[in-house]
């Protein structure tokens, strides 16, 4: 199927979304995303940062789509023409979305563990306005402990539903979800029940902002002072692909390794990108000369 994005054409297989096609072309035309997470089913569509304009629907039906569409959830049709950065309308609308995402955000980046690897920071930097037009009190919630290892800082949440989908798709027995509605909506676990599942720590990794943070790492370090190193641990339950964050020789944080283009074994197809609690907690504080770990790359500089 032929699709043209910002004047650049390429052929993609059926079922490719506009976002995937744009990413194949390159970062210049790929729309920014906040809520889409490629490994999760039915993710995306919520934040509206990735909206683009479809100026020609397809060869069969060349009419434009009247409203902007979420590129992460819209599949390409043959002959489709899309405008992203070439449309001032799209850029203006995106600026609006960024503003909406920020009006109730506490902007407590100086004390936020996510700072430096926060999608919202990057988005605001790349697409937002320098000052806020919002003059009302920001939404505030109490911080909540969900289980011994996870802290929920609802003030920072952008309701991207990524943690909800993660919990839904990999843990059995739904205990994690959204309560209330509108701008009173909040992430919650069933009566603040701990997320006890082995896989639940992954909600920390999928959270694009600092709403879900790792309690073992809270206020320990700024991420830019730590060095990431990808490693593998043989594991029967999960992919075992971990990223160790080092301060000197010391492991101060463990996250899942995000290695694009990497082939996962079919066994872990659904759990690709996910690691179990054993690694997240167990690998902490171990000096680098540990056992059972195979290092992939020496260091990776970009995250």
């Amino acid at each position, binding site marked *: 199927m032929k699709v043209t994005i910002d004047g650049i054409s390429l052929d993609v297989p059926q079922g490719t979304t506009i976002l995937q096609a744009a990413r194949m072309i390159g970062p210049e035309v790929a729309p920014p995303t906040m809520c889409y997470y490629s490994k999760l089913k039915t993710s995306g*569509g*919520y*934040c*509206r*940062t990735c*909206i683009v304009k479809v100026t020609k629907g397809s060869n069969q039906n060349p009419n434009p789509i*009247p*409203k*902007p569409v*979420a590129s992460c*959830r819209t599949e390409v049709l043959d002959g489709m023409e899309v405008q992203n950065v070439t449309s001032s309308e799209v850029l*203006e*609308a995106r600026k*609006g*979305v960024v*503003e*909406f*995402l920020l*009006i*109730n955000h506490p902007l407590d980046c100086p004390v936020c563990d996510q700072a430096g690897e926060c999608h919202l920071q990057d988005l605001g930097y790349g697409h937002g306005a320098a000052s806020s*037009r*919002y*003059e*009302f*009190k920001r939404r505030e919630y109490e911080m909540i402990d969900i289980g011994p290892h996870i802290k929920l800082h609802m003030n920072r949440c*952008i*309701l991207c*539903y990524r943690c909800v989908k993660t919990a839904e798709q990999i843990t059995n027995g739904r205990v994690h*979800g*959204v309560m*209330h*509605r*509108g*701008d*009173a*909506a909040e992430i919650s676990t069933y009566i603040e029940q701990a997320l006890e599942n082995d896989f639940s720590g992954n909600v920390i990794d999928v959270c694009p902002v600092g709403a879900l943070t790792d309690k073992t790492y809270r206020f320990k370090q700024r991420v830019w002072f730590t060095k990431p190193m990808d490693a593998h641990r043989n594991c029967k339950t999960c992919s075992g692909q971990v990223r160790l964050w080092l301060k000197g020789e010391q492991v101060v944080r463990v996250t899942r390794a995000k290695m694009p283009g990497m082939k996962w074994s079919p066994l872990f197809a659904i759990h690709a990108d996910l690691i179990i609690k054993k690694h997240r907690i167990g690998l902490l504080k171990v000096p680098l000369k540990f056992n059972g770990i195979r290092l992939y790359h020496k260091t990776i500089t970009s995250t």
Partner: protein
Amino acid sequence: MATTLLLKHIAVPGIKSLDVYRNMGGYASVEKALRTLTPNQVTEEVKKSGLRGRGGAGFPTGMKWGFLAKPEGVPRYLVCNADESEPGTFKDRYLMEHIPHALIEGMITSSYALGARKSYIYIRGEYFYVSRILQHAIDEAYAAGWLGENILGSGFSHDCYVQVGAGAYICGEETALLESLEGKRGNPRIKPPFPAVAGLWGCPTVVNNVETIAAVCPIITMGGEAYSKIGIGKSTGTKLISASGHINKPGVYEIELGLPVEEFIFSDAYCGGIRNGRKLKAVVAGGSSVPILPAELILKTAQGEPRLMSYESLAEGGFQTGTMLGSGGFIVMDDQTSIVKNLLTFARFYHHESCGQCSPCREGTGWMEKLISKFLSGTAHESDVDLLWDIQSKIEGKTICPLGEAAAWPVAAAIRHFKSEFLELARNKSYVEINHYKRLQPVS
């Protein structure tokens, strides 16, 4: 002469019961359809009738039925949208409360056309007492053989269920309704797929408004052709209008589409004019989400032609000078009404009812409400009007479901036609009394 089809027998004592309803010619459409027509012929009649959805969007019903996917071995469903929560709209309640069998009859006839073995009536939680009336009517229909196995010996079997919602406006949006019906959180789905392909439990589903389904009965009884002669142009048939506001006779009226707006407001057969001898200031013609129009534009189009109660005439002039028929919630305001105060009521509603899935609606609806409340607290600046305009424009069309538009349109229209009222409030810094309203003051 005014034609009435749905409310023709509203004054007949005991019309709520099956016996009286049947005596007045009820269930004739089921008899006619099951005995003499194939399902496709029923759909054809509905297509011929030109019936358009009465839930707000006005989409041709026959065409919607035609889109229903019919894969082998997969059940299909008919779902009736009785979530009626748009401020200013209360016609479905009136119909279900007084003539419940009109809906049940429509459900059976429509289900026959669609090949639906089961159908659901999703009714808003606040209409709990109406759900009991419906359940009673369904029980009566089962006892008389209108529902259940092998109806009228035709081989067609059907079960109809009532499901009560939990009181969320958003569950009136058809895909949120389906989610809620499935027992999930009522968040609208991202489309496509449309319900006609993957609706309730992933099966092909038609969602129709109460009035739409009830209108199928007269269409089948009298024939689609005859129905299409009622009304005007592409606005065929009759429409229930919920009239409220500063009029002498608020209530639900059945009108023939094409009735002049002026006659509807001022004639004694309908609203009976503005109460207390006041003057007409503005009208919201189709439920709170459609653009408000000032008196001169609701009575006459920008071209000076009389405005009619029809899909086309009300929309004449686009949003610049026109509006929409919507769900038929006709709210009339007299010359003492504060447009800004009224707008706050609407804005508060949409803020409260946003599901919170997408950022423009979740964050923008609350922001708009707060800004509007500033005008009434005497703390607004003139530039806040432009900010308000900018915010609504950044919500409109950028959201998953049309609630975003429903929230943005009234704001846009109020500024478009009544900007001077905003500016005056900002200049005079006057404090307007609002009952039971917690004002949200700016912090800086």
